């Protein structure tokens, strides 16, 4: 085992970058769940869509246009999903929701294959963020640092919106008790709709920023789904704090597990999840006691 | 038979049970009176183990059961009915009683035979159905019987575990005065050696059944004695009737 500090810094940065990507994905999913008690398994498929939109837009207008437009396009898909399915499934139990959104995974996956084909697409890292940056004594890819910074900016933004603004207070009231919130004159339906769209946009954003790191392929949504679910279940459904904690735990356990105990790395995170569920069946920081 | 010593429970800043000590002899029928929010149901939940007290002990038949989980206490003879019907809705009256009787007779986990077919289970089901006037409804589903009959079944299911002590949380909650009276006759006809602890809202009805009365107010025992003394007690009138009229 190496004692080189730079090596560990590098691993920590890798872990942080993975955490931030997962945070972008999981925060939308968890807040949607907290507010609407809705489990959207198709969230991963929205991330894949974000990557595909980004690839298409980047090919025409370049990376930054894609970075801005992909989340908007995914939010647009979110609007369709919401009015088509989600709204109607609101009052159903988790099992029906899991199944409908499981069906949506199939549908969205094949739709991306029909539109974009089976071959993976690639998208270039923008010139501005290419290369490496000296940071904490190591050379680290600028683009990955950009993802970390982006995650932190989104986190700060959401913490501000949720904690300090009127709309945040409304969301917190809704998570706490949606009937009560409705009694207080909050238009809960509209609130749900907005939160759902923002959640979708964040999933699209995650897809767009992940696209240059990985190849954009139809099953990338399916691959990211399980880690995202682990994050929100470990963290506790419904809370920003839970999404942050879950993302960090996943990112660090996965990255350092692969370095320290390669044979066990893949089992480790599932064992951790099982342990959390046994000790605290509702996750570490659930929105409600 | 059932004894609590200095039970204490708070939820945050709200002190729901204050230093409650009760002692029920075998066969005693005690009614707990008290205004809404006096902590009656919270006390029940601590007695059966659905809530853990912050301090104090619960003794059942001479044994300290404070640390035992709900199911173990139930198997040692502590049964309860709920203020809000807690039945097996898709099943018939017979099946509802049968599930409870199967647990009591140790047939709830058998793999080789159906519990409801066992003679000892059938016998308990029949006995209990007679005790709480459910015979005509045995094969009806819970969804097909009236609210009043469901209240009877609620008590019946609790009885089908053949308990030593039965805790009843407002058995007549939601039924009309006439039916409530009939309900109390039914309670009066239960075996004399069964210890009963009943939460009741209506004072007059309470006096029908009670050997002894306990009055709770703000989680504290403010009266503990015979019904006659309770009837004459100014303290009771002040606390209980005052808030009764408000409610």
């Amino acid at each position: 085992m190496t004692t080189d500090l730079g090596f560990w810094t590098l691993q920590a940065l890798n872990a942080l970058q993975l955490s931030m990507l997962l945070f972008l994905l999981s925060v939308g999913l968890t807040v949607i769940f907290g507010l609407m008690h809705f489990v959207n398994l198709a969230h991963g498929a929205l991330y894949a869509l974000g990557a595909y939109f980004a690839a298409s837009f980047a090919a025409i207008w370049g990376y930054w246009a894609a970075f801005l437009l992909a989340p908007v396009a995914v939010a647009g898909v979110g609007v369709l999903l919401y009015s088509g399915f989600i709204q109607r499934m609101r009052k159903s139990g988790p099992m029906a929701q899991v199944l409908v959104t499981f069906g949506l995974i199939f549908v969205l996956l094949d739709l991306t294959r029909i539109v974009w084909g089976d071959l993976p697409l690639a998208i270039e890292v923008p010139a501005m963020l290419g290369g490496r940056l000296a940071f904490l004594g190591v050379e680290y890819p600028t683009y990955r640092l950009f993802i970390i910074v982006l995650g932190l900016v989104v986190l700060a933004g959401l913490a501000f919106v949720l904690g300090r603004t009127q709309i945040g207070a409304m969301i917190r009231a809704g998570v706490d008790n949606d009937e009560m919130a409705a009694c207080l004159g909050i238009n809960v339906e509209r609130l749900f709709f907005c939160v759902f769209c923002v959640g979708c946009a964040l999933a699209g954003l995650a897809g767009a920023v992940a696209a240059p790191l990985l190849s954009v392929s139809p099953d990338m949504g399916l691959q990211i789904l399980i880690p995202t679910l682990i994050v929100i279940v470990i963290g506790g459904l419904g809370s920003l704090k839970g999404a942050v904690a879950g993302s960090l735990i996943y990112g660090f356990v996965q990255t350092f597990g692969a370095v320290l105990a390669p044979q066990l790395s893949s089992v480790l995170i599932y064992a951790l999840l099982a342990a959390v569920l046994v000790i605290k069946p509702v996750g570490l920081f659930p929105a409600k006691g | 038979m059932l004894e609590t010593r200095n039970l204490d429970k708070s939820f945050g800043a709200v002190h729901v049970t204050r230093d409650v000590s009760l002692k029920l002899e075998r066969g005693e029928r005690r009614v707990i009176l008290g205004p809404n929010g006096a902590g009656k149901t919270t006390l029940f939940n601590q007695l059966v183990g659905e809530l853990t007290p912050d301090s104090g002990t619960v003794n059942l038949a001479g044994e300290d059961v404070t640390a035992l989980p709900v199911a173990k206490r139930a198997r040692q003879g502590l049964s309860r009915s709920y203020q809000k019907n807690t039945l097996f809705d898709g099943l018939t009256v017979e099946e509802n009683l049968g599930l409870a009787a199967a647990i009591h007779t140790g047939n709830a986990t058998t793999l080789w035979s159906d519990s409801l077919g066992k003679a000892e289970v059938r016998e308990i089901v029949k006995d209990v159905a007679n005790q709480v006037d459910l015979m005509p409804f045995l094969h009806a589903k819970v969804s097909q019987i009236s609210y009043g009959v469901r209240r009877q079944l609620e008590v019946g299911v609790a009885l089908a575990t053949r308990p030593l002590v039965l805790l009843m949380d407002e058995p007549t909650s939601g039924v009309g005065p006439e039916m409530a009276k009939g309900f109390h006759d039914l309670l009066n006809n239960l075996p004399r050696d069964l210890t009963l602890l009943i939460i009741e809202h209506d004072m007059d009805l309470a006096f029908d059944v009670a050997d002894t009365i306990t009055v709770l107010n703000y989680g504290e025992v403010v009266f503990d004695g015979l019904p006659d003394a309770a009837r004459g007690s100014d303290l009771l009138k002040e606390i209980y009737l005052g808030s009764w009229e408000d409610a």
Partner: protein
Amino acid sequence: MFHHTPFRYAALVLLASGALFQAFTAQYFGLEILTEILILAMLVLALDMVAGFGGMVSLCHGALMGVGAYGYAVLSTTAGLTPPVAMAAAVGITAGISWVIGAICSRSHGIYFIMATLAFGQMAYSYVFEAPIFGGDDGLGGIERLDLSFIGVDLNDTRTFALFCLVTLAAMYGLAVMILRSGLGRSFSGVMHNEQRMRALGLTVWRIKADVFGLSGMIAGVAGVLAAQHIMYISPGLMAWTVSGEALVVVILGGLGTLVGPLVGAAVFVVLKHELSSLTTYWHLIVGVILIGVVMSRANGIFGFIENSFAARSKTTEINPKAMEVTKDA
């Protein structure tokens, strides 16, 4: 609590005669499809037992089947046990693991239960994927079928193996019915109806859940052993969570909590998959649309739908509406 109605008996007779007809008349490809249906039917039978009658919506049953398959493969090849011993041991191991998972997850409900079982399934999947003894990504080959030549039965014959699977499925169906109609099964559905009350009546709820989950895992293990013998080669793909997801889809397509419905669902699903995949590579799209349609229509699957309309017309048999409530409330 499971009840056989005349309608369900009729459906069973119809299914059995269809399977027998297929088994005796079909050619190689038809027999392969039949065997695939029978094995899937066994898996979804196991899943319906816990999901439909106890509200334990498991996303690890595919992995449990994989445990049975890998258990048999390793024990019969690497460990050199004779097939019957390896089969029994593999099924026993699957039941044991399943019991432990059931016990651990018994405190979780709703979405947390689904996630917890998913976690355990994925844990098994990752472990098999990594561990050299299980052949990793390459899988394991050279798996032998059970040797029944001493009674003159050659399971290496495709037709005979299909019939063998059919007989096993019938036995597992009988076992599932027996479990559900026992005192244990009764308590299990009591827990689904009202867990708090069962506990207050003195039932050790986690034990009931673990026991039935273990028995369900045992049936999934049998399905796994047969799956390994069928293809004679296994790969970790067998244990992926999507297999469990598909099993759940089949249960829902067929009719949750009807036991007969999932068998219908298995037949429909496999045939649909083969027909559609020969027409288009986008067959998942169609399956997805059907699934969404079925769930959103609020009918209890194909079988549940037919059963309910049949009951509504004849008004003689009573249908347990509980299964639908599970779909809504689980």
